[in-house]
């Protein structure tokens, strides 16, 4: 097979690109996402202080730093075998619900919103949040307000909005004041209201996308944390569900390496992750969480979840990720209200000093399972690190769906629709390329159409003149 010639435009244009292979009849044979940069945090973390992992690993990703912060702190605590005080556990939950709310609001409305509200074939100039601001100012104001509520909660409880810091091994370093707790309690109610208000418009758009829904069906397993059937974002084992809906296995954080295996992918710095058992492909994230779990333990989200599950289970179309995120946002809002209005009392932190050993943490990032694994010596230095991020867990599912969307739209002859259809498939998973391979990157910008490995056409949003 001939190698790809990356021309100057594409080299500049992309941290990531898509290759679309066609067969002899001109039909789609395979679409593939390529991530073109790497930082290599597994190497960068070696030799640093274990106790400071929660402060530096957040820097892997500016979109989900709270997930990395939490994964590292959880890893250290699992290795030591310490349980944090109740007040700290509640505040962590409060911060994390704010984080999921911010991330889901960004994904659903700011990033995917233009696809939904302006249409997949809208010109690119109309498909961004600024043009939405002109066309639907009230909608955009509500969306930004929703995201702000989430992120402000992260800032108040976590100390900072991007790259929060207050979670320390053994607990939390400080607690918000009574006034701040009261504001957050109100914001919880406000957020639930905004999500419920905006959901109708999203549903009516999703209702018109039956073709995409069918195209993005995935014959894969679901992986998600589960606390005996309840959605859990940390501190629970991982469940594996087959694509017929049968629960097949479960494993705790410290057994992840016996259950998962990473594969190098062609032309990409991002590795995929599969189950070791049968080398099976899976997906992670909101869709998997709602396939595996039947409750949230908050009333409004539970009502929505029951309705969602009644309409088919397991749900295996990537389009349903969007609905799953809406339900999760309602849960976050409810939980924010209940924790903030209940208040916290008592000790915030138990002093801990780790010895030599292995430290593994597994959490649900907004986009799926995230694992941090550190080895440390008796001086408290990291001697080895392994990181598995959610977007890796969705890599092959994303390839599957972007291929399907290309099949759906190739014959239309509309290149804009073809390209955006593939990007939309990726956006359904809310991929975080800064996380994936712990690299930098943005959404793909360039599509290479190939036959027998030879590039037929290169499509990009805007060629340099």
């Amino acid at each position, binding site marked *: 097979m001939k*190698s*790809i010639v990356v021309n100057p435009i594409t*080299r*500049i244009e992309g941290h990531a690109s898509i290759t679309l292979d066609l067969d002899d009849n001109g039909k789609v044979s395979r679409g593939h996402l*390529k991530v*073109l940069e*790497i*930082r*290599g945090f*597994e*190497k*960068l973390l070696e*030799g640093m*202080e274990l*106790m*400071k992992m929660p*402060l*530096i690993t957040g*820097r892997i990703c*500016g*979109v989900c*730093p709270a997930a990395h912060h939490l994964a590292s702190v959880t890893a250290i605590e699992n290795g030591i075998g310490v349980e944090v005080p109740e007040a700290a556990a509640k505040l962590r939950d409060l911060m994390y619900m704010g984080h999921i709310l911010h991330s889901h609001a960004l994904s659903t409305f700011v990033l995917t919103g233009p696809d939904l509200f302006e249409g997949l074939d809208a010109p690119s100039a109309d*498909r*961004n*949040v*600024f043009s939405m*601001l002109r066309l639907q100012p009230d909608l955009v*104001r509500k969306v*930004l307000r929703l995201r*702000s509520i989430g992120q402000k909660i992260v*800032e108040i409880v976590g*100390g*900072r*909005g*991007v*790259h929060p*810091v*207050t979670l*320390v091994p053994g607990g939390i*370093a*400080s607690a918000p004041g009574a006034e701040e707790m009261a504001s957050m309690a109100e914001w919880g109610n406000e957020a639930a209201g905004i999500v419920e208000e905006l959901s109708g418009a999203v549903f009516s758009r999703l209702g018109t996308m039956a073709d995409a829904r069918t195209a993005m069906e995935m014959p894969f397993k679901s992986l998600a944390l589960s606390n005996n059937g309840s959605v859990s974002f940390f501190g629970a084992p991982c469940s594996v569900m087959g694509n017929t809906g049968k629960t097949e296995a479960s494993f705790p954080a410290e057994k992840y390496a016996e259950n998962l*295996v*990473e594969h190098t992918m062609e*032309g990409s*710095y991002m*590795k995929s992750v599969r189950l070791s058992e049968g080398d099976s492909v899976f997906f992670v994230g909101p869709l998997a969480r709602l396939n595996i779990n039947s409750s949230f333990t908050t009333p409004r989200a539970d009502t929505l979840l029951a309705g969602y599950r009644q309409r088919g289970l397991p749900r295996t179309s990537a389009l349903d990720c969007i609905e799953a995120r809406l339900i999760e946002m309602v849960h976050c809002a409810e939980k924010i209200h209940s924790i903030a209005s209940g208040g916290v009392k008592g000790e915030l*932190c138990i*002093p801990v000093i780790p010895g030599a050993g292995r430290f593994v943490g597994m959490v649900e990032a907004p986009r799926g399972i995230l694992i941090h694994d550190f080895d440390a010596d008796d001086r*408290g230095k990291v*001697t080895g690190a*392994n990181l*598995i991020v959610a977007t890796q867990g969705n890599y092959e599912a994303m390839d599957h769906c972007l291929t399907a969307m290309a099949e759906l739209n190739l014959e239309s002859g509309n290149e804009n629709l073809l390209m955006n259809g593939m990007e939309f498939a990726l956006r359904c998973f809310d991929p975080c390329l*800064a996380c994936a*391979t712990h690299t*930098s990157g943005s*959404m793909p*910008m360039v599509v290479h159409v190939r036959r027998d490995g030879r590039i037929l056409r290169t499509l990009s*949003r*805007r*060629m340099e003149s």
Partner: protein
Amino acid sequence: MRAKVSTEWLSGCSGCHVAMVDLHEKLLNLVDEVEFVRIPVLMDEKGYPEADVGIVEGAVRSAHDREALLKMRNSVKTLIAFGTCASYGGPSGIGWLHGRNSIIDKVYGDLLTTGPSEKAPTGVPELEKSVVPIDEVVKVDFQLPGCPPHPYYIALALRTLLGASGPVMDAKPVCSQCERKMEKRLDGKLRKGAVSAPESDVCFLSQGVVCLGSVTLNRCQTQCPNKGVVCAGCAGPSPAIIMEPQLDIRTMVAKRMNLVSGIPESEILEYMEEEAKTFYSYALSSPVFYRKPTVEIREWARERCSGVKESG
């Protein structure tokens, strides 16, 4: 006419762009004052349209980054290095300590979950030999470090640049807004690895915990120490440290900490050199740290931080 703003991200985490969105309601006011012609996180524009102000996040890690940066420089009048990665290398710049092959060998060949037959990917753009801040590649007009810069400073920087009146950018250290009180103590004990301390209103240094607040530029509104966590130095060194060749973060911290805790300077120095990879992490790949005559970060990190073995 509104000023045109164009942004790009290189090797980084996109957190600086998220911080821009964290202007929240003020983002909408900003949109009234400036026109974003390119902002990768929010718009589909992939070219490099001409703009008055260019904002670049991230360091230069690959040939991609270098070319994107040159395109940005050529398309904008004023270029801002946005965030600590662009200004000093930041966390991306930690790769400066390691050969590119040792990074690739680790990620694709030496991890618990990497299959035994896996190899490094082919057909990917090669990494450059090292990681550098953007002013090593193009002329930079302004630096706005911070990991990320607090949205307050993002708005202030843009407004200042566009000639608005009001508060001006200052260059004080993180300590300048700290609510903790320095207390002179004589029998302190060095708490290695600690990120917080028992007394919430007393300076970390007085309590034997290394905090970089006194040697770090305040682009954060001192959120960490005021919320119970040490300053990790994420906005890079303060102007005093940058401008004086004989001043270095470890010597300054050791001196101050000795005065308020009684811990011998030599003990603090030895600890910070041993943990150089942690304490210098945000500006490792910048000459503001490595060109100092008394600083041997690479040697400390390689010889004294266990696990740092090099190949290629």
